């Protein structure tokens, strides 16, 4: 892979080696060198006889492609960085220490934001999860900060006693406790890595604006693939259920007509995913109600009531089946809309619990009722 950027330019303490692995100091020392073998490591940096990897601050095309893969599929589960201390530029014992998670995207945004600076990055072991989610679960937490300060050697590398932790790491980190255990004062940086330079320039002060998490249309858009993906994983089971129900006759299940008769429901399932997992998130601020279940109910009705009439015309559905169509897919849409709470930046656990307490039983009853209506409509008369 091309090393597009080599920030280490000289100086008696630093050296750039072609093979990072060769930085290891002697045959007697058995060092796990996986930290040096990562694509973004452009060289090594020796400080107080300890060798640190230097992280590039320009993202490559491959890095950006990795972000796309992480946003859309299971690559996110293996998008990790080796925890430890990294050098950026040509850091000294006075340089700032920025803390990050060992999720590739978290780390990449940070190193990109530090372009042109001399700094240290302390990567925690958050099991490959991003800063905010890991903080919520506590893996980006007090214990791991304390642990990584001790393991990484940062205590020897810098003279000062402060670390800059991303603000979104705060749900997991007890700043006072970290200071008590390590002597390092925790300073909370801005929400977004891209504001770090301004934060540092302002004397380590974030403006009110930098402290607030937003949830704009692009923020929502990039999250939708991972809403659609898991929903679509269940589609084959749904399709099978539709075919069985529409294939049921007094003589047994006959799939011959099931595809044609069930077509509106097979398509309806796809529309419900799009409406609940894509359209509702995109239109989120414009759909009335605070409750996501109700938001989904509205978008679901808006899509499936008109659709049911056109389907009924083409496929000669009775009113009962038409009703089942609207009920089932509105419930699906609402369900997918509620799922989006996990991705938003402003919903809370108590609210999600409250919503689901009434919504989940309704979803289950509606699904069963819809199936019953269709069955009754199709074979009820024959039995």
């Amino acid at each position, binding site marked *: 892979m091309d090393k597009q950027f080599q920030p280490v330019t000289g100086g008696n303490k630093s050296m750039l080696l072609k093979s990072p692995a060769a930085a290891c100091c002697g045959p007697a020392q058995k060092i796990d060198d996986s930290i040096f073998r990562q694509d973004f490591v452009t060289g090594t940096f020796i400080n107080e006889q300890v060798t640190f990897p230097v992280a590039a601050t320009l993202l490559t095309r491959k890095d950006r492609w990795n972000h796309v893969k992480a946003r859309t599929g299971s690559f996110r589960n293996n998008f990790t960085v080796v925890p430890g201390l990294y050098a950026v530029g040509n850091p000294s014992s006075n340089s700032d220490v920025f803390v990050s998670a060992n999720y590739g995207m978290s780390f990449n945004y940070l190193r990109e934001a530090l372009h042109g600076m001399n700094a240290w990055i302390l990567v925690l072991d958050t099991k490959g999860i991003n800063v905010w989610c890991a903080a*919520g679960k506590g893996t980006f937490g007090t214990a791991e900060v304390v642990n990584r300060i001790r393991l990484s050697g940062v205590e020897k590398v810098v003279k000062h006693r402060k670390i800059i932790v991303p*603000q979104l790491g705060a*749900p997991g980190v*007890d*700043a006072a406790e970290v200071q008590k255990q390590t002597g390092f004062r925790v300073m*909370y940086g801005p929400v977004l890595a891209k504001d770090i330079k301004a934060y540092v320039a302002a004397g380590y002060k974030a403006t009110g604006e930098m402290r607030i998490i937003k949830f704009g249309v692009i923020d929502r858009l990039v999250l939708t693939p*991972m809403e659609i993906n898991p929903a679509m994983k269940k589609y084959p089971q749904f399709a099978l259920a539709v075919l069985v129900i529409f294939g049921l006759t007094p003589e047994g299940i006959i799939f011959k007509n099931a595809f044609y008769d069930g077509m509106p429901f097979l398509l309806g399932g796809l529309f419900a995913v799009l409406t609940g997992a894509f359209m509702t998130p995109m239109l989120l601020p414009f759909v009335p109600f605070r409750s996501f279940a109700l938001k989904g109910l509205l978008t679901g009705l808006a899509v499936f009531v008109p659709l049911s009439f056109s389907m009924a015309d083409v496929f000669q559905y009775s009113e009962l089946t038409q009703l089942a169509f609207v009920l089932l897919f509105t419930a699906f849409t609402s369900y997918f809309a509620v799922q989006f709470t996990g991705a938003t930046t402003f919903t*809370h*656990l108590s609210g999600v619990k409250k919503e689901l307490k009434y919504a989940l039983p309704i979803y289950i009853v509606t699904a069963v009722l819809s199936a019953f209506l269709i069955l009754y409509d199709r074979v009820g008369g024959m039995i």
Partner: protein
Amino acid sequence: MKYLQNSTLKFFPEKCTGCGRCTEVCPHAVFEMSDKKAVMKHKDKCMECGACAKNCAFGAISVNSGVGCAAAVITGMLRGTEPVCGCDSSSGCC
């Protein structure tokens, strides 16, 4: 955008020393400093992330924080447990 108003955030002003940590960590500017003390200004914007309570060294804030994703809550409801996040499986976690 605002969510339901049943956030469990509680503020005990008598314990507040005015250190300002809560205004630093809250991503929704729920707290503001006024007269060298914190004020819970926008409770309805709270998302129960727990950053303020975790970082208040004086116990002036309490909130029930936890995994807020619906999938976790549903799994918890069906199993009769607290919300369980399926992070270990291949399913994409929050």
